[in-house]
């Protein structure tokens, strides 16, 4: 994909992730070092009046997986997100994105969302990336 080929409003191909599992949360806890009990221990979640929730950073990791499936990892300059809704085991996350603005210096500003199958936005953000030119 070249900078010249991209139009503002261009929609990137949707990346559909495998459903979130409890084992994945354990695995992510070990990988990331985030052992917050709300992600791992049913009793603690219940005591807080909640259910086990996925790590927000796991969903952001899924979101950046989407971004780097569209744009080379090396060309990402900035990613900024807001965590909107909690994600629960069993939910399937879809990563959708759209080019908002072509900037002069071969960079684009795009929006990106992690949504569940019902379209509920879990994580919303933007990224800036440099897109190679044909020349």
């Amino acid at each position, binding site marked *: 994909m070249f900078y010249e080929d991209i139009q503002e409003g261009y929609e990137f191909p949707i990346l559909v*992730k*495998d459903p979130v599992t409890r084992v*994945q949360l354990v*695995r*992510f806890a*070990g*990988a*990331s*070092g*985030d*052992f*917050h009990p*709300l992600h791992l221990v049913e009793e*603690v979640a219940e005591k*807080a009046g909640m259910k086990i929730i996925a790590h*927000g*950073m*796991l969903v*952001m*990791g*899924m979101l*950046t*997986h989407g*971004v*780097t*499936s569209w744009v*080379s*990892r*090396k060309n*990402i*300059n*900035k*990613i*900024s*997100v*807001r*965590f909107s809704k909690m994600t629960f085991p069993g939910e399937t996350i879809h990563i959708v994105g759209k080019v908002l603005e072509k900037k002069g210096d071969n960079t684009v500003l795009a929006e990106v969302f992690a949504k569940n199958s019902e379209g509920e936005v879990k994580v919303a953000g933007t990224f800036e990336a440099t897109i190679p030119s044909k020349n």
Partner: protein
Amino acid sequence: MTKSVNSIGMKPSNAVDLIGMEFDPYTLAVEQGKIRELALAIGDDNPIYYSLEEAKKEGYKGIPIPPTFFQVVDLWGGLGTTDKMAKLKLNLLRVLHGQQEYEYLGDIVAGDVLFVTSKVVDVVTKTGGSGVMELVTSENRYRNQHDELVAISRNTIVHRL
């Protein structure tokens, strides 16, 4: 930075005093095994995280870190979540990750060593439908073994009072 006065008689917290608080600097060597562990946990099958050859094809000198790897550096190199919340005097069970931003200024690959400085840069108190919340933003700056600033992270946690 002004602290809003809440009208429901709730005891205001001292979170605003946290602005400028610096955490102890920390360092972590970037290991290929941790990169792979994180990529697998996320379900990110991008071959650049698993194969040096594929990474080189994309112009890297070594296996690069996934975009959110800084969390690994922060939590395995610096304070864990529990200790960090204790230092900030925030209740672990009443905090959520609100916002996260990463600026990528240079390549970071397996074998690099990162040196991190971290401080609280902003505290905002907001009153919403579910009550009073404090938004505490920390900024982390990552330098490599050549003293190059390679990334900046801004992390906002939401503390529900």
